[in-house]
């Protein structure tokens, strides 16, 4: 298990409070809440790997297990809680992380402050993207909630301000503002990829996150009418700075290959500007959802001016229908356009059509099955350079899942 210093602080603090509330039940307004969720997923593809990048012949699996504990204090205005999530994608090392751990104070319906490791409000579904029972499809739409971008948008060590403002008789405007650090560490996939890439060129070369330059911030506005029609707009910025690790072979610096860093300089700085637009309508047994994502990234090497490095535009349309208490189904169409200088050739476009059914055995157990048709290579799992990306025309996959929630 890998903990950052902050995560250790959260864990310790929350454990102390949980023990305190158990020993002094009169201080707590409620009993402790425990919830668990988990899933086992199997994937079969006829051509490429989908999601799990170490599968053989397109087959793979992944497992998730989560546990949360929380309590409320001070007339239920103070909330303290945490959630731990274990994920295993194919042969990837089993990883147990703190999903969220936060302290929140609700002043009134208009103002709520939370501090800690927060799951980001990102689109309609980021906060619940790992909770299978919150949707009909097995995964949150990969056009917006892409596994490859998970670390960039998933969670932040942040201070959040949230609130709900009723707008006359029309509905409610929810707002969210956040400032903090993106939850990216040296053990994150994005960091490992950088190091692997540079190590292949210069052995011994390794970069560390420069925490002083790590910033994440943004805001979200969502208006929901009394008829459950929602509109969402979000803007978010991430900034990451990487420095050469201290143990870099001094001869490499001495050789002049790498200039000595000046104060405040980083060897690599990455800025990402993210926008999301969404519309959702729930009408009786129908739910219609559509979201649009736009990401523009820039990078700067050795403190030089930022230059565009990567851009992605994606959208999807999804229709859900609940047939009865047990059965529901969905149909989704998505599109991703990507321009990257390294991973993909210019103007790479991919489409993704899927449909599936969900069967709720009871309130706790769910079975799901879905079919995916892909055109293009964007949804191929992995982070390597795909030599034949343009030759990928059409491939498909079926996915099955058993999930539980308590």
């Amino acid at each position, binding site marked *: 298990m890998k903990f950052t210093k902050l995560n250790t602080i959260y864990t310790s603090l929350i454990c102390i409070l949980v023990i305190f509330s158990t020993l002094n039940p009169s201080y707590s307004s409620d009993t402790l809440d425990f919830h668990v969720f988990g899933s086992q997923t199997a994937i079969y593809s006829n051509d490429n790997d989908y999601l799990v990048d170490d599968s053989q012949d397109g087959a793979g699996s992944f497992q998730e297990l989560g546990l*949360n504990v929380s309590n409320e204090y001070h007339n239920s205005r103070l*909330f303290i809680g945490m959630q731990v999530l274990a994920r295993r994608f194919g042969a990837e090392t089993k990883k147990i992380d703190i999903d969220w751990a936060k302290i929140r104070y609700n002043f009134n319906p208009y103002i709520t402050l939370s501090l800690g490791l927060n799951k980001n409000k990102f689109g309609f579904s980021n*906060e619940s993207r790992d909770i299978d029972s919150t949707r009909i499809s097995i995964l949150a739409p990969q056009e917006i909630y892409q596994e490859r971008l998970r670390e960039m948008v998933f969670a932040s060590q942040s201070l959040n301000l949230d609130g709900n403002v009723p707008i006359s008789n029309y509905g409610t405007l929810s707002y969210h503002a956040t400032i903090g650090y993106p939850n990216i560490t040296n053990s994150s996939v994005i960091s490992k990829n950088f190091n692997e890439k540079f190590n292949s060129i210069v052995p011994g070369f390794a970069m560390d996150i420069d925490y002083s330059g790590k910033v994440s911030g943004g805001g979200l506005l969502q208006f929901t009418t009394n008829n459950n029609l929602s509109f969402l707009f979000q803007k978010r910025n991430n900034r990451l700075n990487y420095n050469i690790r201290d143990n870099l072979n001094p001869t490499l610096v001495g050789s002049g290959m790498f200039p000595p860093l000046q104060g405040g300089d980083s060897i690599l700085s990455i800025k990402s500007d993210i926008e999301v637009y969404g519309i959702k309508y729930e009408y009786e047994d129908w739910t*219609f959802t*559509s979201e649009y994502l736009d990401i523009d990234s820039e990078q700067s090497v050795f403190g030089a001016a930022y230059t565009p490095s990567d851009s992605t535009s994606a959208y999807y349309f999804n229709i859900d229908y609940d047939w009865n208490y047990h059965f529901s189904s969905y149909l989704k169409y998505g599109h991703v356009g990507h321009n990257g200088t390294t991973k993909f050739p*210019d103007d*790479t476009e991919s489409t993704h059509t899927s449909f599936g059914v969900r069967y709720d055995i009871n309130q706790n157990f769910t079975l799901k099955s879905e079919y995916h048709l892909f055109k293009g290579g964007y949804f191929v799992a992995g982070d390597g350079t795909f030599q034949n990306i343009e030759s990928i025309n059409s491939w498909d996959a079926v996915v099955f899942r058993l999930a539980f929630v308590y």
Partner: protein
Amino acid sequence: MSLAKKSTMKIQLFTILSLTLCSLCTLYANELTSTKDGNKPGTKSSNQNLDVSLIANKTKNSEMIALNSSEAKANIDSESFSIVVNSNNKIDSINKKQLRLIFLGRIRHWSESNKKLNVYYLEATSSAGKSFLKSIMRMTPDKFYLYWTKKVFSGSSAPPTEIKSSSKLLQHIADNEGGIAIVQSSSLKNLPEGCKVIKLE
């Protein structure tokens, strides 16, 4: 992706969204029309509850008789629901918007007393539960469960407590000053001491 291509994609998306929005507006307009005509399912039960009279602080059947016959009939309707709070609560009525925000977890305290709202409801799949969810929340039981599962696992707030037995539910309200509950109107015949019914405006 080139800038021109990106702009074209945005325009296409905007067009599709606009068309979708127009369709939804049409759907909404139709819904309003049918509501005016009194044809919409769910409207009936909410209107019935508009007539529910206050039975403040009283539990005796004699007080129930104060309801006029049509109100009593509305209350006994198997699909109708009523709103019950603790008898020490000073409020006499609540509007649909407030009730909706309470059950969405967006209002969590009584404004006058600053007490925590303890929210209870009779099984979402019961006829009264369905009627309440449809007319006030505009949700099916499935969607209501989904909404709260999302909230629970993102650490937002604790869900309303679902209770299967009307008598137990009413007892919770009697024991809890901050309590509010949706109950089947027919269960008001056995309203325990410490509970009162409030009007839905």
